């Protein structure tokens, strides 16, 4: 029961991080290997705002989200767009984007190290028990889950019930066809990339309420987000949410019953199962 609830709470927060990458990879077609670093930046910003200004992480989101949006828009505009223009083919773009974001992730780690040093950072916020079915759970986990669920729901409604969301989904399905019906693909991609970064960073700020972070953890979160996106099916929001819960549950089960140090192994096991059984993802379509 414990495992189930803690796993679901964790999965709910992972959903946010996965949606961020989903937007960046599914719509903007940039495989962002620095996605985990964006998340860690969000987490560090939340820690810093809390320890320096006593600002709660939920309030800090108001500042972190726009900042991450602008920063990621700039990354797309000034670093990814030249690669998009230079690439002769989709494959070439994929390789270039992977290399560039891989380099970017090390720059981000370097900046974080220079600003905050190399130790683990954490703070105590809403660390009081909350009872579900008579069992106590940390309130911060529940708050993070609810906030993440609200953001995911908002994003879902925005994607499916507004014109801007429709253009994003159109580019996700087929960029060249979207261009033919008068959608500005470059601008939509930039929007999706920036939004994805903002969502990832907010995921980091929420996770920082109950996880400890250090500057080098980004790669683990990048990998988890990628596994979720692949498991759910690229470009599929429902799939990403279901996959987030599966990963959250598996990870919590592994941490509880085997060893807390093996969480990445849990992600890899899911990854291998997906690759062997259903490489197009739970809800993905097989390429024709």
């Amino acid at each position, binding site marked *: 029961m414990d495992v189930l609830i803690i796993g679901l709470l964790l999965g709910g927060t992972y959903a946010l991080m996965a949606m961020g990458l989903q937007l960046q990879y599914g719509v903007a077609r940039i495989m962002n290997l620095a996605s985990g670093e964006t998340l860690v930046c969000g987490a560090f910003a939340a820690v810093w705002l809390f320890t320096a200004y006593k600002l709660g992480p939920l309030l800090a989101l108001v500042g972190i989200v726009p900042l991450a949006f602008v920063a990621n828009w700039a990354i797309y505009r000034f670093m990814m767009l030249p690669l998009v223009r230079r690439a002769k083919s989709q494959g070439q773009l994929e390789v270039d984007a992977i290399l560039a974001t*891989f380099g970017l992730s090390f*720059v981000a780690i370097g900046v974080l*190290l220079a600003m905050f040093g190399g130790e683990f950072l954490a703070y105590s916020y809403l660390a009081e028990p909350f009872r579900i079915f008579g069992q106590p759970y940390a309130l911060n986990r529940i708050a993070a889950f609810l906030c993440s669920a609200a953001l995911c729901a908002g994003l879902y409604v925005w994607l499916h019930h507004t014109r801007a969301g429709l253009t994003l989904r159109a580019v996700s399905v087929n960029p060249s066809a979207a261009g033919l019906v008068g959608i500005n693909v470059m601008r939509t991609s930039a929007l999706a990339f920036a939004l994805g970064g903002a969502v990832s960073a907010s995921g980091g700020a929420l996770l920082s309420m109950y996880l400890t972070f250090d500057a*080098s953890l980004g790669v683990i979160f990048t*990998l988890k987000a990628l596994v979720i996106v692949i498991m759910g099916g690229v470009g599929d929001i429902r799939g990403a949410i279901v996959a987030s819960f599966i990963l959250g549950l598996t990870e919590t089960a592994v941490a509880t019953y085997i060893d807390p140090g*093996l969480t990445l192994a849990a992600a*890899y096991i899911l990854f291998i199962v997906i690759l062997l059984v259903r490489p197009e993802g739970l809800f993905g379509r097989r390429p024709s």
Partner: protein
Amino acid sequence: MSGGGDHHTVSFVQTVRAALVLSRREQVSLLAVALIFGAAALLPVFNTGYWLSIGVSIAMFTVLATSWTLFSGPTNYIALSTAAFFGIGMYIVGGGLPYLPFPALVAVAAITGALFAAVVGLATLRISGVYFVIFTLGLAELVRQVVAWAQHVMGTSSGLYVLIGMSDQAMYWLLLGVAALVYLVGWFIGRSRLGFALRIIGNDEVVAVHSGINTARAKVVLFVISSSFAAVTGALVAPRWSYVEPSIAFSPFLSFEVVIMALLGGVHRLWGPLVGVIPFTLLWEFISAKFPAQTTLLLGACFLLIVYFIPRGVVGLIEDTVRQLRRRKSDNG
């Protein structure tokens, strides 16, 4: 490329024979390479201190970057897993020394690395796309976690002592020997059907499949060779750190440095990575001495500069310049 066992051995023998027929030009370049290796082997005669230790680093990265290029160069599948295999090799030596002699452990490392690479390759390389890159991204971290867990279960400490007296000189010659082997293997693959298949895969995988190439097999074979060399390198240099611990063996920087050096040199020529390894090792020696706190940042910045400004590496730059000069000459003449 499929067929019975007999057919296979015959075609293999034919390939070997065909590959051993050398043109005049190839004989000359082979001789030149042998001379360069001979000259490099003389380094310990002149200096056994600082420069020899840099020589060891250069030889190590030459093996790692060149073997990385064997697979990632022609196929464009970026492998970010060098540290995983390097660490496996290191830990096999660290953990196995009480039971087996050092040379046997190096062989064990080669086989373990190859088997592990085969598993990873079979899971990810049968499908095209970015799955492989993603899988390799966290691989070093995964192996580190599993090793730490296994040590925890067995009740051993996380660090291991590698106390065998191996001089820098011996290590340098060993690595140089492995480098020569990498070049030989790479040169041989480049001339074989396998190398041809890989270049087609790199250009267009769909075309490769349609022309009857077993793309999965070609990719897995090359990834296995490449990773096995990384494991051997890890095993060989383990005595350099008399105390092996996870942060050294599975350092994510290692994978990153190898990719940087290979890209800086150029990945479409066998000798390309060497052109990147030598200046970068020297630069890195300088940077880590002068700015020890900013190494990560500077490493990332260097990498971005290379990706954006010299995407085809120094070798590509040289080739482009030479081609332009020739064209200008022929225009004038």
